[in-house]
């Protein structure tokens, strides 16, 4: 295609690129700022003017405080547990539900689809759900984090839509061999569904990793708190006092601000290092979700 390169068109390209590059800098700078500030001298940071582009003074005492803090480590371990156990539970239930609802021979599938979709519009809300969790006797246990979020309806429907597109011919031979539904699911459906499985597993894991609200209302016991709830205490409620006890520095007050930055880095960098490589799965998920029912 021959395109005439006019002056206006060239100017547009330049302006377009400049705006987009500036936008990426705006997206990037906050994390860069946090990284620089976490290794800077906190007093100099609080008095600095203009943009922060390089560390002011260099100290890593905040990281020492963070890494020797038991709350952070326990929070990390708890979060890993919630992510792993929660996602496994999610995947089992979602796959089973999606399989049953994608069987054309299953007579009640229309009714069950409505039964499930209805919950996307109407739910009991905060208090009835809280009272249920309390009534089940799982308040202040790890089950209170895992059970109420055991299935995400959106993910379930997305998986079902994918299963629906698998041609029946694939199952025919297995059916003739007399394979049961569990065999068909495990040996035929799942191996050809890796894209959707990767997508929803990622969605579920990220949701568990980010979640803090349920932990806040269901867990009193600090030793069961996920990392995000510990972070909330430090970043939002401004309560880094608890971290100070383990702090090794002399100037404890000034390091408090730095601890915030160091905590953000420690809690965010793992995800930020991983997501560019998983990006294609996430984007695929957005498109799968966009496919109309």
């Amino acid at each position, binding site marked *: 295609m021959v395109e005439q390169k006019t002056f206006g068109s060239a100017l547009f390209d330049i302006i377009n690129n400049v705006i987009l590059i500036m936008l990426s800098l705006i997206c990037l700078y906050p994390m860069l700022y946090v990284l620089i500030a976490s290794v800077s001298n906190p007093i100099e940071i609080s008095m600095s003017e203009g943009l922060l582009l390089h560390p002011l003074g260099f100290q890593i005492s905040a990281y020492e405080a963070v890494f020797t803090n038991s709350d952070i480590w326990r929070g990390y371990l708890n979060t890993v547990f919630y992510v792993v156990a929660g996602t496994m539970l999610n995947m089992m239930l979602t796959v089973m539900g999606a399989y049953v609802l994608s069987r054309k021979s299953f007579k009640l599938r229309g009714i069950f689809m409505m039964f499930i979709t209805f919950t996307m519009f109407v739910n009991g*809300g905060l208090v009835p759900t809280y009272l249920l969790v309390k009534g089940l006797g799982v308040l202040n246990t790890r089950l209170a984090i895992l059970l109420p979020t055991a*299935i995400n309806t959106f993910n379930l429907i997305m998986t079902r839509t994918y299963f629906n597109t698998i041609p029946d011919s694939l199952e025919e031979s297995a059916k003739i061999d007399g394979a049961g539904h569990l065999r068909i699911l495990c040996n035929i459906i799942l191996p050809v569904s890796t894209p959707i499985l990767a997508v929803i597993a990622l969605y579920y894991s990220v949701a568990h990793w980010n979640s803090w609200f349920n932990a806040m209302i269901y867990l009193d016991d600090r030793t069961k708190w996920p990392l995000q709830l510990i972070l909330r205490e430090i970043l939002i409620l401004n309560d880094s006092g608890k971290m100070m006890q383990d702090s090794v520095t002399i100037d404890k007050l000034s390091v408090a601000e730095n601890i915030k930055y160091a905590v953000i880095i420690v809690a965010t960098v793992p995800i930020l290092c991983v997501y560019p490589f998983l990006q294609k799965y996430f984007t695929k998920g957005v498109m799968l979700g966009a496919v109309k029912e």
Partner: protein
Amino acid sequence: MKNQAAIKKTIKSLFVSTALKQDRSLYLMFLPVFLYYFVFCYIPMAGIILAFKEFSPRLGIFGSEWIGFRHFTEFFTGPKFFNVLWNTLRINIMNLIFGFPAPIILALMLNEMKSRTLKRCIQTVTYMPHFISLVVAVGLILDFTKRTGIVNNIIVMLGGERTAFMSESDFFTPIYVISGIWQEVGWGSIIYLAALSGINMDLYEAASIDGAGRWRKMISITLPGIMPTMVIMLILRMGQMMSLGSEKIILMYNDLIMDKADVISSYVYRLAFGTAPDYGFSTAVNLFNTVINVILLVSANHISNKMSEVSLW
């Protein structure tokens, strides 16, 4: 002859019994899913009756006394009603005006980019804030907007005055909306980029032959091409006009800016878990919100169905 019929019959019954068995295993497989929905979605729905009761912990949900619509009349005539209603609407409207077009504009701009490598880089970088957890994102917002924070540093650099943004309620909505755009603009553009990649390239070529410039092609080909996606996303937004998640609000607000920051969902949260918990009242306010949300979503879908035959269901 007789024999053959008998064989046929046994074969048939064999098939029927395996079919039943097969169905039974399907039911068995669905049982845990059914139980989840029944226990964690439908039982709490029954708990909505709390909205019409004066909850007493001693008597429980079903034993508590019925009080009819008293919680609702109390809410509608109370001082908080218009406050949280207007805050919810204002934040949502601002989010619609500024937050809705942002990813579309970004997608269109990315689409005009010539260099594929640079485009990929910019995409990856703009997705990044989406992967920062909400708690950390709000932590960043609070830190950047404080008096000695980086935003104030930049304002001073440009010759302005320092302000403690999160202590003045007028700044809450802009900060909420702008930070929301920062978090989601890249991620939100994915769906439009997908729609853009689905547009037939021949159309552009034909337009070029007809002498159409870039601007003309965008107006006549690109925008109509992503229109269905835009309509669906707009319906989704309209349907959520009165629902605003409480999580970001609860993390962001403080006593100084409560008058502009408190929305229905955060009010529901405080009524249930604040200093003076009132479970019945909280459930009533939440029920009011749910009813409005369902009405909005259904009517938004109806309107779009009439207008463009694009609908969610």
